[in-house]
């Protein structure tokens, strides 16, 4: 029984972790991990989240799963606020939402075998005979490209990528309606990764699973995402369809991000000069637009006012005083406006090409 409206809706989600707190000490400040994040995900949709290390992606994931409590804002599933759920209701929702953790090893119980780990979520809800359990484990392992004999191994006896696939198999076991995947394919070589991505896309087609897919691999994001949210220092700075974002990034940070991706071609030399800039801190975020210390387009206003997310004519939203002024709907590309393209410090430096032979 699905109600109309999005499957998952996030409104003004905020999370501050107090720091300096401890015995007899007062918290003197906070890590502003997530600030005013809002988005929604439809059934059968893949929303990707990208952004710099430490910008709050995993914290968003933990908030969605209610593994940590928000400082502010709400998470709604089928229109119901998960904060108000009673224990047994939460249990029913957990069944519909599964997470693949960024750190596979610490999220797997080291004393359980691979088989026990992947069937455990199902056994939380129904009893399985030994035979059923083994059949389920074998099937799930096979789906993620591992041989069924691996079900008897402990996590410590598996390779990094095998552990990661165990986390994926576990998330799939309950056939959830939504999977939060935090860097779920980061440890996989491209061929196994292709197999897993195909599996996820197939399951999405067959079962209508929605994904919140956190990844720093832009190739993967572009391939399987429907929409992408770009985060910078706790906030969403651009949210667009995959096509639009990769064809024409509007926010200066998005642009820099796309320009920084490594390319599997040793003959390609990167010549672009870097722009200097310090990595920002969520403990002490810059005033105004958090990107302004590194942004070549920054104007006076950027140092004072946080830019709001402004809708553009193509449906995307962008938070930038220069490229998306709050005066109304915008449809501009970097080229049209004759703005310099944006690069991040260090990101585009040509990494010592001199020692490689020139192919002419």
């Amino acid at each position, binding site marked *: 029984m699905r109600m109309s409206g999005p499957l998952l809706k996030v409104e003004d989600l905020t999370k501050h972790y107090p720091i300096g707190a401890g015995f007899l000490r007062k918290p003197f400040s906070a890590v502003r991990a997530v600030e005013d994040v809002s988005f929604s995900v439809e059934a059968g949709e893949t929303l990707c989240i990208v952004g710099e290390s*430490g910008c709050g992606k995993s914290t968003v994931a933990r908030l969605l799963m209610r593994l940590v409590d928000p400082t502010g804002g709400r998470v709604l599933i089928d229109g119901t606020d998960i904060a108000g759920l009673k224990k047994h209701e939460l249990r029913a929702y957990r069944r519909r939402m599964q997470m693949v953790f960024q750190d596979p090893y610490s999220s797997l119980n080291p004393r359980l075998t691979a088989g026990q780990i992947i069937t455990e979520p199902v056994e939380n809800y129904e009893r399985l005979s030994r035979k059923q359990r083994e059949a389920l484990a074998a099937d799930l392992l096979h789906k993620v490209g591992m041989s069924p004999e691996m079900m008897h191994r402990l996590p410590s006896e598996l*390779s990094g990528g095998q552990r990661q696939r165990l986390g994926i198999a576990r998330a799939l076991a309950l056939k959830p309606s939504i999977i939060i995947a935090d860097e779920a394919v*980061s440890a996989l070589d491209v*061929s196994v990764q292709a197999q897993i991505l195909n599996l996820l896309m197939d399951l999405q087609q067959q079962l209508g699973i929605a994904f919140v897919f956190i990844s720093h691999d832009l190739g993967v994001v572009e*391939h399987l995402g429907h929409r992408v949210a770009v985060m910078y220092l706790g906030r969403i700075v651009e949210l667009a369809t995959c096509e639009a974002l990769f064809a024409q990034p509007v926010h200066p940070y998005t642009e820099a991000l796309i320009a920084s991706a490594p390319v*599997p*071609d040793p003959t390609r030399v990167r010549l672009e000069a870097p722009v200097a800039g310090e990595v920002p801190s969520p403990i002490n975020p810059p005033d105004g637009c958090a990107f302004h210390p590194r942004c070549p387009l920054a104007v006076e206003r950027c140092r004072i006012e946080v830019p709001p997310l402004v809708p553009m004519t193509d449906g995307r939203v962008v938070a930038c005083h220069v490229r998306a002024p709050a005066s109304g709907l915008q449809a501009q590309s970097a080229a049209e406006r004759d703005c310099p393209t944006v690069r991040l410090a260090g990101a585009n430096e040509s*990494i010592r090409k001199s020692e490689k032979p020139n192919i002419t």
Partner: protein
Amino acid sequence: MQMHNTIRDEVLLDVRSLETHFYGEESVTHALGGISFQIMKGETVGVVGESGCGKSVTALSILRLLPKLTARTVGGEVRFHGQDLLKLSEQEMRKIRGGKIAMIFQDPMTSLNPVYTVGHQIAEAIQIHTGVSRSSALTEAEEMLRFVRIADPERRVSNYPYEMSGGMRQRVMIAMALACSPELLIADEPTTALDVTIQAQILRLIVDLKERTGTAVMFITHDLGVVAETCQRVIVMYAGRIVEQASVMDLFARPMHPYTQALMHSVPDRRRGRQSRLPEIPGIVPNLRDPIIGCSFAPRCPFAIDICREKTPVLRDIESGHAAACWRSEEIVCA
């Protein structure tokens, strides 16, 4: 490449027929089936291959960090500056680890201690290997955090690992490994948890360090983009063996082993339609419990012929400096 000729000639690490087994209750896993390779002084060598092919086990075997009860290196030599590490006492080995050879582990949480702050842990690594005072080690720890682009290092030194994001923990590991200016850095997927901009900065740091101190790097990664940008030579592994070895230019221009070719074909590519199925390599890696007869890639190889199922191809030079372990490399490359 010409400019490196002088140091190129000096072999730093020479691995010969390294063979490692895991002992289970009723079976033995042949994780490494005898691999040989060299790393020159100041050289960056990439190691790629399918998940579970033995990349991490190679690194752990070199440093003798395999689980004591269940694993054993049953054969081969690991010569570092000509000295076989497998013959050293545990005490001598401990001096080398984190000193002349440093390792960045694939899983930061297993190698960071959850009950100590990251500053404490980096400082300890610095103290053990340089013998400086506690306070200057702590100052240096802070410097190292800044070095790996962690903002607010003066506060972050007192973070516990769980208080950091995945990418920050990975950078802490990198800081610890670089703190002692090793001669050989073994980096096992050091940038998997990092976004592209910070990844680019970290790669830059490793390259800088290499130029400044002549550190050689064994770079285990599944990211072919990273390999293309940082490595001079590449080793491709499959099922516990090396199946191809070449300079990075040759490998990308003319992959000679069918597995390498298939691997390169699987990269998500902008030119392919979004949401389309990505090319997979059909089938799964062989079970390393059963002894493999013939080529281990044969069950999945589109080029397999009878000889492939009967005799194991050895790694041999197909062209100068470009080796592959395949009966049909010559034909395949010409085709």
